[in-house]
């Protein structure tokens, strides 16, 4: 809906009035858009009324239609609906792509059908990952970064609305420009309110563009993978993380080491990420910090404010300045017994896996967690306390593996790191498995020695060469 045409919309509505019968009327709609968090959140509070419009069609209403733009659809982290009064969640189902409105349609199912003249207040919450686009595209080293946000001043709904308003919460009160023609518009600190608008037609849209400053550096992680490896044999719980950090601020027009040094000396460079800090278990050892070309020697470990933790500080190879990218691997081994509990009654092991390092708080575009269990683990069950795109169990072959280790692979797109809570995996494992590898390795060495002794006892030459006699020794 880039090229918005109000006339088109209105005529479309008139046309549609003959096709569908709008029996729902929104008495009051408030939309809150929050741009201050890693993920953008939309909260719409609606008072829905089943109102007589066409007496021939006076059935009770059991669902409410809701549209999401294709631009956002791919970036959704989660979409929830709830009844405001009781707080009960409502079921949402997808109705696929609606070509007429060029948007994806969802149905919010009411707990009980809405009879004629009844009212219900519902809340639809959507969070999605969409970095704000920088405007202008290029800035100097310490220049203020401005961003652009485009959206709809109205709430795009397929029903007519008596009263509605849109509240947009911006990251700072430094607003360069906003559409003020769509009166009434009010600005209060960080918030811009469009509306309240009275008697709005269905499917009504009016684009607004906001330009504002953001003090915090906009960074996100394009891909984060964590691999947790369990080894009963050495009592080690290994963590290996890969992260690809993107500074999504405006691009740096040109870099000058001199200017960078000066501003660093004067108290810090704007729009830059200097260090990443994360808490790791206090018994973590073999800590490493590498990237695709080898070791990065600038990491340190210090005390953490959290109990039983220490703080790992990672300094990237180069400061991640405005518009720059960086990727790295880091990891450590810690004692398995702190994460693994054996349940005697059910004879199972319960493993707790931290899904995301604490306290990195940036949105993640692609998240992947793989948990590698020891070879021979059976009856694998898992409890994942967040939404996932897919969970698969595959095999992985590592050192001296013959049947392969079971690997739980969890994938998720557009993630808010705050929702990534600990994953619990339970499995059964026989301690006899611990003996398999040493026996196989010993057997192989024995076989090699045996083969050698057999080969050496064979005579390979056809005719015996008397080597000693022809060797000119004396």
């Amino acid at each position, binding site marked *: 809906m880039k090229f918005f045409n109000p006339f088109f919309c209105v005529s479309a509505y008139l046309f549609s009035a003959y096709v569908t019968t709008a029996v729902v009327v929104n008495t009051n709609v408030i939309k809150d858009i929050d741009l201050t968090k890693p993920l953008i959140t939309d909260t719409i509070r609606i008072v829905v009324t089943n109102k007589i419009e066409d007496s021939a069609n006076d059935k009770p209403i059991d669902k409410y239609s809701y549209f999401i733009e294709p631009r956002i659809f791919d970036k959704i982290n989660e979409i929830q609906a709830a009844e405001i009064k009781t707080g009960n969640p409502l079921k949402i189902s997808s109705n696929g792509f609606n070509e007429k409105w060029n948007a994806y349609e969802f149905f919010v199912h009411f707990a009980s059908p809405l009879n004629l003249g009844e009212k219900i207040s519902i809340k639809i919450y959507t969070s999605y990952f969409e970095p704000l686009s920088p405007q202008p595209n290029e800035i100097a080293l310490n220049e203020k970064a401005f961003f652009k946000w485009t959206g709809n001043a109205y709430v795009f709904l397929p029903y007519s609305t008596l009263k509605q308003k849109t509240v947009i919460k911006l990251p700072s009160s430094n607003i360069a420009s906003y559409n003020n023609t769509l009166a009434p518009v009010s600005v209060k600190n960080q918030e811009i309110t469009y509306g309240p608008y009275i008697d709005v037609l269905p499917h009504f849209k009016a684009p607004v563009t906001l330009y504002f400053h953001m003090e915090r550096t906009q960074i996100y992680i394009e891909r984060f993978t964590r691999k947790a490896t369990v080894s009963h044999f050495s009592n080690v719980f290994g963590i290996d993380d890969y992260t690809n950090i993107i500074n999504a601020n405006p691009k740096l027009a*040109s*870099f*000058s*080491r*001199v200017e960078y*040094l000066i501003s660093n000396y004067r108290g810090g460079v704007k729009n830059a990420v200097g260090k990443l800090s994360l808490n790791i278990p206090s018994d973590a050892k073999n800590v490493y910090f590498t*990237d*695709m*070309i*080898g*070791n*990065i*020697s600038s990491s340190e470990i210090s005390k953490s404010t959290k109990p039983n933790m220490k703080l790992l500080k990672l300094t990237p*190879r*180069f400061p991640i300045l405005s*518009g*720059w*990218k*960086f*990727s790295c691997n880091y990891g450590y081994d810690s004692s398995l017994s702190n994460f693994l509990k054996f349940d005697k009654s059910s004879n199972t092991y319960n493993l707790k896996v931290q899904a995301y390092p604490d306290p990195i708080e940036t949105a993640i575009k692609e998240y992947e967690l793989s948990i590698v269990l020891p070879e021979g683990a059976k009856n694998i069950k898992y409890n994942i306390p967040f939404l996932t795109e897919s969970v698969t169990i595959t095999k992985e*072959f*590592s*050192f*001296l*593996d*013959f049947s392969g280790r079971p690997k739980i692979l969890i994938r998720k797109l557009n993630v808010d790191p705050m929702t990534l809570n600990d994953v619990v995996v339970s499995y059964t494992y026989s301690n006899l498995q611990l003996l398999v590898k040493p026996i196989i390795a010993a057997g*192989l060495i024995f076989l090699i020695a045996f083969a050698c002794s057999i080969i050496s006892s064979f005579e390979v*030459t056809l005719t015996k*060469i008397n*080597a000693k006699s*022809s*060797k*000119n*020794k*004396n």
Partner: protein
Amino acid sequence: MEESKKLYLLKITILLLISVTAISSRLFSVLRYESIIHEFDPWFNYRTTQYLVNNGFYEFWNWFDSKSWYPLGRVVGGTLFPGIMVTSATIYKILDKIGLHVDIRDVCVFLAPVFSSLTAIATYLITNEVQDSIAGLFAAAFMGVAPGYISRSVAGSYDNEGIAIFLLVFTFYLWLKSVRTGSMFYSCMTALFYFYMVSAWGGYVFIINMIPLHVFTLLLMGRYNNDIYVSYSTFYVIGTLASMQIPFVGFQPTFTSEHMASLGTFGLLQIFAFANYLNSMIPQQHFRNIFRTFLMAIIAAMFMVLFYLTSTKKIAPWTGRFYSLWDTGYAKIHVPIIASVSEHQPTAWSQFFMDLNILMWLFPVGLYFIFQKLTDSQIFLILYAVLGSYFAGVMVRLILTLTPIVCILSGIGASEFYKVFLNFKESAPKDSDESNKKPNTEPQQQKKELKKKVSAQNIKSSKKSTKPNSPFDPFTKSIHLFVVSVVTLMLIMFQIHSTWVTSNAYSSPSVVLASYDQKGNKIIIDDFREAYNWLTHNTKEDSKIMSWWDYGYQLAGLANRTTLVDNNTWNNTHIATMAKIFAADEETGYEIVNTLDVDYLLVVYGGILGYSGDDINKFLWMIRIGQGVYPNDLREEKFYDSNGNYNIGDNASPAMRSSIMHKLTYYRVSDFVGVDGMDRARQQKVPSKVTLDYFEEVFTSSNWMVRLYKPKSPDILGRSPPKSI
């Protein structure tokens, strides 16, 4: 247990200890830095190995690399020696199959140390073949730790030489064995390992000239026999056919001068064999006359043909690198690109001492003993010693080919020496019993003792038969004791020296540097990887990076970006064009840079850290190389100041000051170090004002070592950026 079995076990133990020593003394760099590929060429080998592992052999064989030599590209499969890549890929695959999943990088890093332990064993075999097992053990021990070889085979130096020296020694061993036994099996094995050598290193030419020379010498000495005929004919035919399977070698064995000696010898040997056959048919007197004239005529004719073919270019003339082996001044005048590489310089005496230390004195001793009883194999060693010494004197890096023979002869020298001086008749048996029981903590010490014991036992048995009773008087005994202890001490010193040299001179990856602060803490200087990694993350994938050729392989391997020139140096003109750009003024350079589609320019500057291998110090060589192709645009003397000095400061010559190299290097440096700041790599004042109109800085690493620029894009109307006055 029987005596011989005990000795056998002892030898195996000693060899194992030598192998362990050989490997572990090469691990300094891994312990000090990390498991990383070193220097320049290994990065190419590493990159191609990765390609081989990921894409399979046929893709690798047909690989056209469009990421190097932009816009020309490079047919990688046909222009490299695939031996080392195939070796490590095979090892990787085997380890993977048996369930040991290691990183291909680790295979590459540890390949050279593992092969050096094999080299030590091969040295034992060849010395044992020529002399005896005690000399063999000495030679193996020397080979394991000789700095001349370590310099090319530390962990991470993933280069052809890493496996080629093993192949060289082992091929020679098989050759000597086949000559001695006349066994076709061994000559086939020789040919096979020769093929492996051809696939691994350009230095195979040494083998294909060394072996014919050996045969030719044997013929001249009248030592012709059927064994030689069988082994050489088999070796030459199979070896040559096999070597032609490597695309980079192709048909070279049929038409290049380097291979003509082997062909000639092959022909000569056939004539000899024929003559020998005739000899058994015709009476002696007639035969001699016939044979002499015939031989002379043949040799003369062959030389004439060779001369004719060479002069008419039917046979490819010697390449520049080979000419520089005869005339050390040749390269400097004709092929500056060869002379500009430090490892192609003539060797200084101190280098010999540093790389071979005490072996330099033991080497002639061994040579002396070899001359005592001239067998076919020993003649070979003498020839090798002579040629190896000559080549090592001409080119620094050929100390590498000298090292094996020095170790072999030193081993022989040392063992003969100990045989004479360790002859304490009374104490010998007691000694051997004691050292067997004594638990020894130091492996090196233990090895020495074991060795002594072996020799003592050997002497015991040999001397008993020759001189049954000649008791030593105390004076002679004490002299013996003194001499033995002094020489042993020197050998221990050699070991210490080798470790010291390895640790201090040969274990730096050169991609990563280390320095120490005032408190003595180690600081890792990682500017190269900082900049390369920046390029990987923050430039477009198809960006073209221009730099001097030294950094080409690293840019491709570490930053994964397209380069214009690299360490392959196959196209001199292209390299000279880079030199022309760096030496040109901004306006001219900007034009060429745009025609070549360059996105970024990389210069290395060591003035802040005092790193002397930077681009400004290489700049004169760039100009010399560029001058050969663009004599009208580049003049070396223009870049010296009025006093004829190489100056970079405010007194530098106008050409120097306006050159792109100078500008890119010193742009804004004086803002950082101050107007009176010093360039620590050259101990000169930095220029106070450097302007830059056509290029802009995009990145500079934290210690200013790597600086990246991009040419400013022309404006909307296609006009060049404005020039400041």
